């Protein structure tokens, strides 16, 4: 099906509008996929670096680094995974046509707000982790293992801040949502921001497993 232009008078205006909106959704989804892949390459490079360091060292973690509790990383993992789950619930609430629009909008908004605060909580736990390391005199320059922890968590936290801004934008848009704008909003803005948030969660999960568990 081809859209010639918005002045294609052979089709009804509503049909043309629907086709146009579907086309916009399609190319927006394509662009988002490319963006996530591109973004992912940054983290792939970081993980590549990690594997090089990890498997070229005779002992891991390197000697001279005090043992530390992984409570804060666990709490960080819990909060970010829970925030992802809540975002999924928010989407499912919005898509539940069995209840009225204002009600499902309000329920979805609550979940998104909770998700946002859990994201903030993640950042707080990350900060507490770094303070804990500081207290144990494990600094960014202590050795390669501490450099990786500090460096990678800073990079991830920087991206998570972007994600938090995106969630704020989502909250703002949800407040202004109408039944007419709902479908396109769900297919584009909500989906893109949700997938970006899940992407950040998956990256953290991998980091958590590689840096603190294995």
């Amino acid at each position: 099906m081809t859209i010639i232009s918005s002045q294609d008078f052979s089709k009804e205006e509503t049909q043309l509008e629907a086709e146009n909106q579907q086309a916009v959704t399609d190319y927006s989804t394509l662009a988002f996929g490319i963006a996530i892949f591109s973004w992912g390459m940054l983290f792939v490079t970081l993980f590549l670096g990690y594997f090089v360091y990890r498997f070229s060292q005779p002992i891991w973690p390197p000697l001279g680094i005090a043992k530390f509790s992984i409570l804060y990383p666990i709490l960080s993992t819990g909060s970010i995974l829970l925030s992802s789950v809540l975002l999924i619930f928010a989407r499912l609430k919005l898509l539940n046509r069995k209840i009225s629009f204002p009600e499902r909008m309000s329920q979805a908004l609550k979940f998104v707000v909770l998700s946002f605060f859990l994201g903030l909580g993640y950042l707080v736990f990350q900060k507490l982790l770094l303070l804990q390391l500081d207290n144990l005199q494990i600094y960014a320059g202590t050795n390669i293992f501490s450099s990786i922890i500090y460096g990678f968590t800073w990079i991830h936290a920087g991206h998570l801040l972007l994600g938090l801004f995106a969630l704020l934008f989502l909250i703002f848009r949800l407040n202004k949502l109408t039944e007419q704008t709902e479908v396109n909003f769900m297919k584009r803005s909500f989906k893109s921001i949700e997938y970006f948030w899940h992407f950040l969660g998956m990256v953290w999960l991998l980091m958590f497993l590689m840096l603190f568990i294995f």
Partner: protein
Amino acid sequence: MTYAHPIHPAPTSFLKKYVFSFDHKVIGKQFLWYGIFFLGIGGMMALLIRWTLAFPGQPFPILGNILFPHTNGVVPPDTYAMLFTLHGTIMIFYAITPILIGAFGNYCIPLMIGARDMAFPTLNMLSFHLAVLSGLILLASLFLPLGGAAGGWTSYPTLSTAIGSPGAGQTFWCLAIFVLGASSTMGAINYITTIISFRAPGMGYFDMPLTIWGLWLTAILNAIFIPVLGAGVLLLIFDRVFGTTFFLAGAAATSGAGDPILFQHVFWIFGHPEVYILILPAWGIVSDFLSFFSRKPAFGAKATALAMTTITILSTLVYGHHMFTTQMSPLLTQTFMTLTMTISIPSAILFANWLGTIWKGSIQFHTPMLFSLGVVFVFGLGGLTGLYLGTATTDFYLHDTYFVVGHFHYTMAASVLLGGFGATYFWFPKMFGRMMNEFWGKVHFWGTMIGLNGIFAGMLVVGYAGMHRRLYNPFVYDFMKNLAPMNTFVTYAALLMGATQIIFVWNFIHSLLKGKIADKNPWNVGTLEWTLTSPPPVHNFDQIPVVKCGPHEYGNPNVKGKDFQYQTEELVKI
């Protein structure tokens, strides 16, 4: 499904028209000014380098006393290091990338595929302004107390760490590269999405001009590999600013066990695709121009597109040939060598198709065609020299000599620059509605061609003789003293080439103001942009065209009244 943006009213305020424009044509021109500006700066730096090599200890004329008052106009050694670093950085990231990819990519893609604009006009505008921010950061680094980055454009640690390069110059360099990487990635996402989703009805992938193929494949490589460089420079910034130990090791390290060679791996995983990012648009442009100005179909157009695609894929696998001398395992060295040899096969197909296109054509020696023929010559030569560098045994001798410098300047500077100039002469009428002067264009071509062959062939010779690169005064070594006359010759060739560019700049400005008014289609070419007025309206196409044939339909005797077909015309059978 093809999508077409609706027609929006044209902007009216100065800021919306020329500064914060969403129009891909304006953004393309913005990138063109930006790229030409930095080309000038990078070129001046090259002349300073060449002066130092040809006339060591002599003050640089006129500008020397202004730039280097403390050394009586002579380029000091630490400044020399900054010069070759920033010359490379500026030419690659701030001249070639903005001109070939930013300017011609932005300008040509929507017009040639029959779209009204890029998929994301706002992202496009942001991409340009981020590039401006990056340029400002890089230029600001020149005014820091200890000057700009001086570790080479490759910025290898441990020289580029806080110990090897104290001061903020290298940090500014890393930051500038990171910001530019973000700008390039935004552009790449836009280009890929636009080409996939906004092609006019009837335009299959093999109906796209080869220029678009080149730009599309470049964008794909950009999207995948720019973030790799981003990760590398980010970790280098952390080492310099926060004291992490990613790239510190051995005597330079105060603690920890980093790996400087890891930076080289990360850098060249990006770096080799980067050189193909730079050349692919020029390949596409030249492949099209050879057909347009030979007035015959592009020989093996589909094979050319597939060869470019194969090269794109293979380019991701060959990065190790930049690191043969880092004591990688012999098996890894041999693997990279074999893959590097393999990449010469699709390159040869591409080259053969160029020759097949020109063969028995009715060649019109307009300025764009001269530049395209120039590219065929310089890329052929430069590409062949790559075989010696791709073979590990010869590379052990040639690595870090001027042979490498000559090779990459032939393939990148000469080919891409000539391609860029050809593109400028070709699309100038479409962009500005006026023709550039043909006579002075040809003078520009010959001056540039003679100049750059003198420079880079000379470099191949001195490099083969063993002259190392990045040396302030190579003539302190006895075995290099005999190379001084050749270096002087190279510098004279560089001065000739530099002077010739003044002709180009004058021609450009004069034509902008007083050039002959251009027809809709002064070159009689059938691609979609030539169906529009020169310059096109803001929204490009009133009605999105329907494509009915390929972009290289030339020389068909059954076509009446002209020797080509527009892509919107029904294909006339031979």
